[in-house]
Every structure is written in structure tokens, then in C-alpha cells.
């Protein structure tokens, strides 16, 4: 196929071991663009609404995407999808590295796993050879150790994705690990793999990917690469990766410190990008085809502990496992990053869960006797190591935290819900939204809970007024359409944000690859369709008006920021409600946060309106009709 697709889709029944090879559905790709889009559609169509996310009726999707492996800058992503055990809604998570392109080089676009294997297996793909192999020799191994063993056993040129003990034990914020440090961390995809007894995926391929117009693609992409080599952001980006933003975030009062109690960290100089490069860096590390090499392969050296190697900590882990835990040494942050990676836990939710537990300890809600005689104090790497072992193996109170902060707070009670820093069950990324209202709204309304990849507005908030909430909703809607497109195409978003590559250029690349001939606006419309389908799916599973799911924890409006440049800043509940009202209006949803038939019809997903109507959650018609265009394009630095 000369359209960027490899040509074959696999359907694998883990109950029976049956592997079906099907021609990839080009019509489905054209309509949903692959990645997050196809994931949303397949999950909507195939997973029964009452299916347990960790049960046999959930499915697990691996999608290499339409643009990955196609000489597109940072075209390296692979997207995983299933109904999320963390949010109980449609879930997806992606990672860079080399797995996605390699799947296509082996000939496969999409893998859909159904059922549960009776015993631990791993999927072996070597071009045409596809086998579900016995994984009893790998089950129980930690993520990085398992990848090493599979490489030793199969060969260095196999690309591997694994889960760790946490995924095997059904810890709901378990991740999938690849390339000794790339993770699909969010929404608990590792827990779904574990529930299916699928320990790993190993792929090797030597086929070519054909695109529609290689001459034009080569000319355009080579031009972009050569042009951006001289971009002023390139040097700091290559040097620090995202760790560059640790200082920036602190200076601008958005970094989470001590479980989001404040947004200023007094010891920031001990955990910043300079510390990382000076004390930990082994080598820069890039994903497939990426010239920005933001990955930092590092070591953590702590007296009395073995030297460990890891990738990171990047910004998110650096903040959530650094300032948010009160860590005062970059080696300690890196060591916690490694612990989480090797156990197979998402280091973002992981940081959130540890921080929540630390605040519970601070407030006396959990005590030493609950922690097998250990403490859980801010800044103690030893306490964190012991606590994580309890969580990953569900020992004692570790079991309470295995479901993330929302479920832990429900167990602990006594007001702890207020500082369980999550939305829809998923922990917040490394930004506090109290003085960045657009960011808070982004967390509140994201389909997978409080994750920044759907919309990130800090620079918008700074430019438009950090105490103003008016007008922010329309921009969030736009960002929620444009940012997820990268996950839909399975390419990295960072080169757009950091190197001023325009959406028009990226869609031009897409057209050279696929021959679709679409515009940016058409792509945005597809993204809006995906957004609304996921919204309907979430509501159908969780059976309530949409608005019921869209509130942050009460800390967001009850506590003002207590220290640093943001001291005294914060939002009121009335402002949060105002943002939600504006957001729903901008989306063409009713005041209860429910999509309307007029909108769903306009987007061509009428069936979702029928399903919502049956459940009684279809939006009331909007007086005067839905807005003709949803969202407002935002030009200045707004990523």
C-alpha cells in the first residue's frame, strides 16, 4: 500500500491462541486517522459497557499509526488503548522509541488482543512469523530486567515492550515500558496487559513502508530538519530535554510541591536540569527519526544503594517525583524514577500516589504501624522505596493505593478526598492549575482525566491573564482538538511546540504520506469527532451527566497557594463553574455537560446520540443551535 500503512491488522484471541491476519481497513483509517482515533472507535464499538476493564471482555489495542516510521520528524509513536481501569472510560497512552515504526517494518498496523490467556505469554513477531510464546520464564521479572532478558534471548534488533510486576499484580496505574526508558504510562494500560497475562511484545521487521509521494515528502521533511537544526530552542532542548522546564515552572508558580500544597519549591536548584546533566547524564537518547534527542539516559548514584541506569527524569517525573515529594537530590529523584520504571508503574501517577500518601502521613491519616514500621516523610528516598514495594505487591495499606489516589482517598476518608490530586481517577500532571485557570480546565475536561497531553495552557494563561477565567474555554477546546491529533497520527508533539513547525506543514506531510489531501481544519474536525465519541463512551459507562465527572479535588478552590510568587492566588468554585459553563457552550454541549444530538449529527456520529438518549443523558437542544465552529484558534505560543 502506498499510503503509509503496512497493510495487515492482527486480531489475537488470547483465550484460544488464535491469530487472524486481516487486511488493514483503509476506510477506517481514512475516517479515524489511526492511533487515538481508531482506538476510540474500536473501543466504542467492541467493549460492552459493563465490561470489567481488567476482565476478559475488555480489549487491548496496539496501534502503530499512519505517520510513524515514515521519515516524519519524531514519527516514532505507538499507541496503546483499552478501557482504562483507572478512569473506567476509553483509555489510551502512547510512547516513543522504536516499537511503532518496527511494527510497520514487520508489516503490521494494528493489533487487537481479545480475551485472557490461560497462562503468561508474550507476542513474538519476526516479519511473517507470529507466535504467542510461553512467558513463564519472564513472568515476575521487573520491566527493565525483562527487556534485557528478551533482548539477550531473541537478539538486539528486536524491539520490546514489557510490563513489570505492578502490571502483573493489577496495580491500576501500571505502565508499558520499552527501549529501557520509554513508557506508555497513563491510563493503566500495563494493568490491562497484565490482566490478559500478556507479559511482552517483541518485534523485528525488515520490510519497507511505502508512502504516496516520497519525493515530495523527502523534500519537505529534509527541508524542515535542516531549517530547524539552527532553531534557537534546539540547543537547550538537546542539552536538557524537558528537564529544562523544572526551573521555569518553579519561577512561574505552577510546579507542584508537597502534593500540590504549594507551587514553589525552595530546593529547586538541587533537582533541576543542570543537576541532571551534571550529576546523572550518561548519554543523550532519541526516539526513532528524531533530531531533538530530548531523552536523557542517566544513572542514579546513592551511597548504600546499587548504581542504577534509567532514562529520565524528564519534566513530569522530575516535578511529580521531585518537588512534589520534597526530594533534595537529583540522584534521589532519578532513583525513584528507576524504581517506578522497573516495577512497571507510571511515574506520573506514581509520583501523585506517593505524594498523596506522604500528605496522609503528614496529617496522621496513615501511621508507621500502617507502613510496616516505616515512616513516609517528605524527601526520604528510603521511605519511598519501601512504600512502593508495598503498593506494587499490594501488601497491607499498599493495596489501598494500588487503585490510585481517588480509590485510596475513598478508603482513607477523613477529608483526604480534598487533596487526592486527580480527575476521573487519573492523577494530575506536573502543573498546578490554581493560578493557571486554563490548565485546571484542561485537567477537568480531559477524556482520560488529569493529563496535560490533551491541552496545556500555561503560556496562554500567562498571556491572557492568570486571574481571568473568561474566554479560556474556547482556547482549551481548540487545544483539545489539535494536541490529540499528534497521538492520532502517532507522532511526537514536541517539535511543533518547540521548533515552530506549523500544523499546516504537518498536515502537508500527512498528505504526502497518505494522499488524503486534507486541510488542517478537516483534521481538527476529525479530532473533535474523536473527542465527542470518547465523551459519550465515558458517560455511557459511568451513567451520569457529563458535568458530574468534570470537577477537580476541592484543594483547587478551597486552598490558596501558600508560598512563592503565586502566594495568595487561587480560584473560587464559582469561577470553576463559570469555566465549565463556557466550556460546554463552546463545545455545543448543554449545561449539564452532555453532548447534543445536533452536534453529534454534525460530526457524523449519530449512533452515539441514540445511545445517550436511551440512557437519558443526551444533551438538551441548545437555544439558537450549536456554535458553527467549536474552539478558537490560538496563535501565540500556546502548546
Amino acid at each position, binding site marked *: 500500500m502506498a499510503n503509509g500503512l503496512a497493510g495487515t491488522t492482527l486480531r489475537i484471541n488470547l483465550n484460544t491462541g488464535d491469530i487472524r491476519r486481516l487486511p488493514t481497513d483503509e476506510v477506517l483509517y481514512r475516517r479515524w486517522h489511526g492511533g487515538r482515533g481508531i482506538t476510540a472507535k474500536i473501543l466504542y464499538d467492541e467493549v460492552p459497557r459493563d465490561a470489567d476493564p481488567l476482565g476478559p471482555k475488555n480489549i487491548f489495542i496496539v496501534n502503530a499509526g499512519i505517520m510513524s*516510521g*515514515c*521519515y516524519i520528524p519524531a514519527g516514532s509513536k505507538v499507541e496503546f488503548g483499552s478501557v482504562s481501569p483507572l478512569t473506567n472510560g476509553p483509555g489510551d497512552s502512547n510512547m516513543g522509541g*522504536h516499537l511503532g515504526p518496527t511494527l510497520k*517494518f514487520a508489516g503490521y498496523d494494528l493489533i487487537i488482543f481479545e480475551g485472557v490467556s490461560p497462562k503468561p505469554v508474550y507476542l513474538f513477531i519476526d516479519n511473517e512469523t507470529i507466535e504467542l510464546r510461553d512467558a513463564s520464564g519472564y513472568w515476575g521479572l521487573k520491566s*527493565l530486567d525483562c527487556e*534485557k532478558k528478551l533482548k539477550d534471548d531473541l537478539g*538486539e534488533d528486536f524491539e520490546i515492550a514489557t510490563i513489570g510486576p505492578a502490571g502483573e499484580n493489577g496495580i491500576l496505574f501500571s505502565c508499558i515500558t520499552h*527501549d*529501557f526508558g520509554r513508557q506508555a504510562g497513563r491510563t493503566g494500560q500495563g494493568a490491562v496487559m497484565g490482566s490478559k497475562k500478556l507479559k511482552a511484545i517483541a518485534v523485528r*521487521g*525488515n*520490510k*519497507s*513502508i*511505502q*508512502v504516496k509521494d*516520497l519525493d515530495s515528502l*523527502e523534500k519537505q521533511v*529534509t527541508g524542515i*530538519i*535542516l531549517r530547524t*537544526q539552527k532553531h534557537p530552542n*534546539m540547543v537547550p532542548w*538537546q542539552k536538557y530535554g524537558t528537564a529544562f522546564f523544572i526551573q521555569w515552572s518553579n519561577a512561574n508558580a505552577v510546579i507542584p510541591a508537597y502534593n500540590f500544597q504549594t507551587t514553589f519549591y525552595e530546593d529547586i536548584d538541587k533537582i533541576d536540569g543542570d543537576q541532571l546533566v551534571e550529576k546523572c547524564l*550518561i*548519554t*543523550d*537518547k*532519541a*526516539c*526513532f*527519526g*528524531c*533530531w*531533538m*534527542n530530548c*531523552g536523557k*539516559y542517566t*544513572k542514579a548514584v546513592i551511597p548504600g544503594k546499587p548504581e542504577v*541506569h534509567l532514562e529520565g527524569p524528564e519534566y513530569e517525573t522530575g516535578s511529580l517525583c521531585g518537588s512534589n515529594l520534597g526530594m533534595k537530590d537529583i540522584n534521589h529523584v532519578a532513583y525513584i524514577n528507576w524504581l517506578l520504571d522497573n516495577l512497571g508503574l507510571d511515574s506520573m501517577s506514581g509520583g501523585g500516589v506517593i505524594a498523596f500518601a506522604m500528605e496522609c502521613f503528614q496529617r496522621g491519616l496513615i501511621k508507621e504501624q500502617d507502613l510496616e514500621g516505616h515512616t513516609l516523610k517528605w524527601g526520604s528516598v528510603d521511605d519511598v522505596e519501601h512504600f512502593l514495594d508495598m503498593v506494587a505487591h499490594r501488601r497491607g495499606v499498599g493495596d489501598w493505593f494500588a487503585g490510585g489516589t481517588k480509590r485510596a482517598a475513598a478508603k482513607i476518608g477523613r477529608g483526604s478526598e480534598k487533596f487526592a490530586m486527580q480527575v476521573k481517577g487519573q492523577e494530575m500532571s506536573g502543573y498546578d492549575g490554581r493560578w493557571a485557570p486554563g490548565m485546571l480546565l484542561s485537567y477537568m475536561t480531559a477524556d482520560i482525566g488529569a493529563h496535560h497531553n490533551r491541552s496545556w495552557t500555561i503560556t496562554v494563561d500567562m498571556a491572557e491573564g492568570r486571574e481571568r477565567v473568561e474566554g479560556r474555554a474556547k482556547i482549551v477546546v481548540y487545544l483539545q482538538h489539535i494536541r490529540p491529533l499528534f497521538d492520532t497520527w502517532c507522532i511526537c508533539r514536541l517539535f511543533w511546540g518547540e521548533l515552530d513547525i506549523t500544523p499546516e506543514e504537518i498536515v502537508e506531510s500527512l498528505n504526502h504520506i497518505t494522499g488524503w489531501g486534507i486541510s488542517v481544519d478537516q483534521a481538527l474536525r476529525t479530532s473533535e469527532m474523536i473527542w465527542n465519541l470518547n465523551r459519550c463512551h465515558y458517560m455511557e459507562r459511568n451513567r451520569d451527566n457529563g458535568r458530574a465527572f468534570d470537577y477537580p479535588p476541592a484543594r483547587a478552590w478551597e486552598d490558596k497557594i501558600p508560598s512563592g510568587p503565586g502566594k495568595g492566588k487561587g480560584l473560587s468554585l464559582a469561577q470553576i463553574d463559570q469555566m465549565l459553563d463556557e466550556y460546554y457552550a463552546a463545545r455545543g454541549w448543554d449545561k449539564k455537560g452532555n453532548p447534543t444530538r445536533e452536534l453529534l449529527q454534525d460530526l457524523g456520529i449519530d449512533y452515539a446520540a441514540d445511545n445517550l438518549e436511551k440512557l437519558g443523558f443526551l444533551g438538551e437542544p441548545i437555544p439558537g443551535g450549536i456554535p458553527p465552529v467549536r474552539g478558537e484558534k490560538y496563535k501565540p505560543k500556546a502548546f
Partner: protein
Amino acid sequence: MRIKVNRDKCTGCRLCLQICTIEHFREINPKKAALRVEAKFPDPGKYRPFVCTQCGKCEEVCPEGAISRVASGAYIVDKDKCTNCGECVPACPVGVVFRHPDHDFVIICDFCMLCTELCNTGALVKWERAASQEAKEA
């Protein structure tokens, strides 16, 4: 003309492998590239690119006389003469003579230098040497 390798600067992105196969086969397929990148993880945690050093071992062992050096210094494979016997593959001391099931000839770097143009870290650098030196070695 040669390619200088600064191995500590390689980040393993494989952009070099992609442009190599686009240039020479009009396909995207790293397994058809005329250079390779070795990854050593988790220990010590390093990448190392390997490129043709123009040592001439492939030409020496070729039983068909299908490999010959040209003025640029590169060893060029005559696709008509090459029988894909594979003698040159193990003879290459750096492991950069490749075979691929799609083709009945071996793949060797022709020093088009596109990889050095795209390499953004300086791991692969175009290495222009004095003409007299090149001539002497040729």
C-alpha cells in the same frame, strides 16, 4: 571523502538509516541502509554508529570483481556482476556490508553524505581529506 564517527555523540535516532534507504532505494526501510547503529543498554548505555572505513576488504574477497573503488574513495557494487554470494559480508571488519531478501546484491555505502547532512549531533561528520592523500590510498 570519508565519514568521521564521533561515537559519543550518537543518540540512536536512526535518521541516517532512513535517509540512506530513501536516497538509494526510494523506500523507507532501515534494514536496507549502508550503515548501522549499535545500542548497548542498559549497560553501559551507549550508542555507536558504524560506517564504511574504505578499508577495501570487500573488494579483496569479492570473487566476481563486482566491487571497485571510485575516485571519491567509495567502494561501489556493480549490481549486475554481484551474485550476492555474501563473501564480503563477514570480511567487513566493521560489519557494514549488508544483504536484504528483497535484493540480489550487497549494500555498501557510496558516500552520498546525506547522513552527515541530517545528523544533528555531529556523530556523523563529512570528512574531506586532501586530494593527494585520497589519491595515494586509491
